[in-house]
């Protein structure tokens, strides 16, 4: 027998669906940025006033300062510089410039160690298959992990929209666990390194915003999960 949902419940599910959808979009944005060279179009969008204002609203003035610098100074003719910087930071392992965007490296000092295996297991457990693409060659690449979080948040949003709270909470539990056991353990160090190595402001900005985003997202997701679980128990 299906339980009749109250209007309040429906409103809350809609709000939670919107939050999850917003989070999924941000994961897609950041994951895409680390996964491939940004296009001229996406860079132009990032240099726009609307985008800067939106990011400032989300992450605050301090975290978006380099983005503002980038937006003020960026000229489409400098696109090649951005491409070179991307290659040096994320693709070509040149000493003192390559940021090795893999979880395993930050937690153990080496690639393909236990954290990588754990990430792989997490994907399998959630029924997600990993497809290597361009620079994202391993499961624990930052872009791979962002993609996984995007998938989970999108599924959570769908479940809230369909008024299936237990399914939505299940996805949320996966998200919080993955953030706790993986992303929050290394993203800060990665971002610090990226901020230090990057020369052009867009990558410095992305580093600052990523760190802030993961911090805020983890807090928000964990708080929602705690509140919803408590509500579930009290019902």
């Amino acid at each position, binding site marked *: 027998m299906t339980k009749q949902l109250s209007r309040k419940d429906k409103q809350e599910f809609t709000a939670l669906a919107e939050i999850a959808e917003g989070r999924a979009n941000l994961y897609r944005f950041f994951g895409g940025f680390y996964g491939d060279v940004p296009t001229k179009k996406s860079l132009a969008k990032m240099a726009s006033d609307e985008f800067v204002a939106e990011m400032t609203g989300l992450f605050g003035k301090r975290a978006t300062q380099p983005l503002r610098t980038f937006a003020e100074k960026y000229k489409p003719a400098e696109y090649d510089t951005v491409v070179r910087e991307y290659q040096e930071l994320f693709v070509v392992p040149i000493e003192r410039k390559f940021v090795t965007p893999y979880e395993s490296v930050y937690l153990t000092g080496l690639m393909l160690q236990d954290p990588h295996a754990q990430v792989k297991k997490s994907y399998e457990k959630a029924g997600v298959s990993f497809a290597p693409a361009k620079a994202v060659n391993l499961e624990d690449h930052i872009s791979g992990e962002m993609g996984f979080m995007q998938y989970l948040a999108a599924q959570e949003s769908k479940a809230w929209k369909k008024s299936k709270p237990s399914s939505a909470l299940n996805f949320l539990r996966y998200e919080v666990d993955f953030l706790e056991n993986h992303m*929050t353990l290394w993203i800060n160090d990665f971002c610090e390194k990226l901020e230090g190595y990057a020369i052009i402001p867009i990558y410095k900005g992305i580093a600052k915003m990523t760190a802030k985003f993961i911090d805020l997202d*983890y*807090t928000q997701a*964990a*708080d929602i*999960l705690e509140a919803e679980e408590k509500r579930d128990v009290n019902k």
Partner: protein
Amino acid sequence: MTATTNAKEKDLTDIVACNLERLEPGLTVFDTRVPTVLGHEIDILALDKIKRLTLVAIWPKKVPGRQVVKEILALFYRWNFISDFKEDLWAAADEREVTLALRPPRIILLTPELPPTAWPYLNWMRECHIKISVFSLDEPAPANGKEPDWQKVEWPEKIKPLSRALLHKFNLDNVKIVNEQRIVWEALIAQDPLLNGYSKDRRLAAARKEMFGKGKEGK
């Protein structure tokens, strides 16, 4: 000597050190201004009446809300330092009183006003079996001729437990500190293999200063 006689020349640490009995009968000074590996100074290290190491920490001013976690982390780090180097600390004492050295160190915190956001952290530490007492400190420090008036602060009846996110972040920051200490400590040991934990003549602090310049100030 009482604290009030030379209050002008002495700072708060000395005033508290001289008046430990006002906090708790039988509390005696073991050492003051003990340096730690990361440079955070332990204000007073005391012994209680059953010879248990007691960290007496002083927050001279009310800690603003945004600083609470940082201060609690520093407090927890100092407590961990005492626990880690307990045997060395005892070895440095004139009289070894090792029979009771296995008891975990305690914490006494003196502060003019404890921010409400600090209670969940202290409560969590208490749940981890760290005995903590909080005393209200006069603000400003007792002036010459005035007796210090320190009152034991009662624990609130209901303390909201730390949220999952806050506890996780606290643990992450703590692991960072532990790793930092390990790196600094290993560097110190590499430089001087005979360096053995805490030393009365502050070799540790001196070596650290030599290696890292001024380094981080604890407070």
